[in-house]
């Protein structure tokens, strides 16, 4: 063989902390782009992500609404009450895309490819949870349109409305870190599929999303009161200025009276717990 061997310079052997942090952000940006592209190439995703919540809106607004929503079968106040809960539920269910996304990347060897690159580990997860927020925004636009069609209105100020949406997005972000962790523990896409969804039902139904939380029996009442999901829903409802239907008991207790504060604190706590867990699991998972 007559090859000439060139010693190629090992690029930037010593990297400053600042450059490292910058790399986390650029890498996260690249991974976010990749995940968003993945969804754009599968537009039927939007159908899957919105069909469920639209069905819920129709069921609760028109099937149960008459019974739940107060006397005389007038469910218009209930429909207005419902939408904040639907928003929060929609983005919570969205986190199952994180779960499935990770499980499928693991299965297809994409994670191995990432791990063989000199990139930030955190970026693989951050890129996924961030991409989820892009998707959440798209879904919230669709669901807002759906809400407007059935008579829901934002009755507060513009600024409060923006804060209401931000509240939902913060909650969505927290949920997708839980999703990331579950996706990285799941052993297959099939497991991820059910593991990603199953905990959604107690989370979103033992709450103030569809019924007055005061009406829940036994221990479910306090659970609903302290459920971060309830807090996110109540805070958003307050910001949209969507009252409970006339004659409903006002929720009481510290979490209800400080819904926004409690919602923010619990979201931050969830991220603080699940971000390190997910990162550690990422490190462990492929090195088996």
């Amino acid at each position, binding site marked *: 063989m007559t*090859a000439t061997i060139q010693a*190629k310079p090992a690029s930037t052997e010593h990297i400053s902390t600042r450059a490292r942090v910058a790399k986390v952000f650029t890498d996260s940006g690249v991974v976010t782009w990749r995940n968003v592209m*993945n969804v754009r*190439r599968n537009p039927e995703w939007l159908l899957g992500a919105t069909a469920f919540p639209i069905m819920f809106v129709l069921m609760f607004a028109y099937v149960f609404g008459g019974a739940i929503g107060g006397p005389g079968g007038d469910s218009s106040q209930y429909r207005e009450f419902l939408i904040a809960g639907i928003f929060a539920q929609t983005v919570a269910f969205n986190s199952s895309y994180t779960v499935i996304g990770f499980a499928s990347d693991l299965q297809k060897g994409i994670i191995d490819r990432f*791990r*063989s690159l*000199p990139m930030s580990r955190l970026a693989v997860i951050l890129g996924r949870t961030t991409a989820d927020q892009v998707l959440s925004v798209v879904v919230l636009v669709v669901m807002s349109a759906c809400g407007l069609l059935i008579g829901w209105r934002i009755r507060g100020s513009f600024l409060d409305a923006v804060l209401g949406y931000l509240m939902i997005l913060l909650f969505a972000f927290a949920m997708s870190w839980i999703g990331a962790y579950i996706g990285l523990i799941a052993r297959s896409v099939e497991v991820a599929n059910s593991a990603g969804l199953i905990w959604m039902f107690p989370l979103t139904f033992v709450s103030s999303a569809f019924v007055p939380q005061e009406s829940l029996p036994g221990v479910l009442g306090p659970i609903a009161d302290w459920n971060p999901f309830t807090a996110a829903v109540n805070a958003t409802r307050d910001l949209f200025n969507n009252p409970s239907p006339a004659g409903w008991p006002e929720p009481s207790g510290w979490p209800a009276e400080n819904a926004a504060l409690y919602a923010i604190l619990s979201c931050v706590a969830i991220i603080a717990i699940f971000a390190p867990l997910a990162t550690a699991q990422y490190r462990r998972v492929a090195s*088996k």
Partner: protein
Amino acid sequence: MSENDRQVAVRARDLVKTYGSTRALDGVDLEVPSGKVLGLLGPNGAGKTTTVRILTTLLKPDSGEAWVAGRDVLAEPDSVRRVIGLSGQYAAVDENLTGFENLYMVGRLYGQNKATARARARELLARFQLDEAADRPSKGYSGGMRRRLDLAGALVAEPTVVILDEPTTGLDPRGRIEMWEVIKELVADGTTVLLTTQYLEEADQLADSIVVIDKGRVIARGTADELKSQISGERLELVVSTVDELPATAKVLAEVGAAEPAIDEHTRRVDVIVDTGPKALVEALRLLDAQNVVVQDVALHRPTLDDVFLSLTGSRAESEGEQ
């Protein structure tokens, strides 16, 4: 970096990795000199992928050490990742991204700026004859195209060491030959290559030296020629016209041969290793003619790597009472 490290691009010492009671690797040593190709050859479950995953920082061994381009794989994994390119056993392409997007993404993650990543992606796509399909989602690519795209991904940052895990498994003959060409070009550019394969022909074609592993242990090493010469002499092969003639034929071949002949009833073939080919051939035909055995076909050839491989892995398996 010592002078020795400059000459040895990949070195593994006594790698051990167990999964429960399975010893996936049971003390593997290997060295790849800079600019050379090492073929890591072994049957299913031999430990090829496990070795590759350790060398590419994806897996930590239970014990043992490894260096790539003078960097300690265990102590400085990030530094190793900067100088290697990996193409794993199953092509890790993102199906929903186009060929271009896949390579662009990898370039960006290596820290290239947008313009560089774009230019490099186009360059590689052209080199791997993927330029026509470059802007189609890779979902629609053939197996060979995916494999080439995956390999292109490994080359984005011009690595000094490229590690390929069964690069041609699942490709049709044409795809395989195309992949061989690509690998040969890489080597001509001075890149060090470690490739795993189950095909002796492939190791013979591409590798400067070969390490044969089975059940996590190295069972032979050397150049293709050295391995072939481990089985001395030549192989004499006869096909007779009826099954009834097989015992007599075997008896004759046992006489002229240097080892026990092997009989295949299905193809009515008997073969044996002989020391001096032409002489044994003439003698065998004379003896068979005297017994009126009708020989339909006769061949004499040097042992192939397959013979070496089978004699190495086969005998080992038998001695442990499996098979």
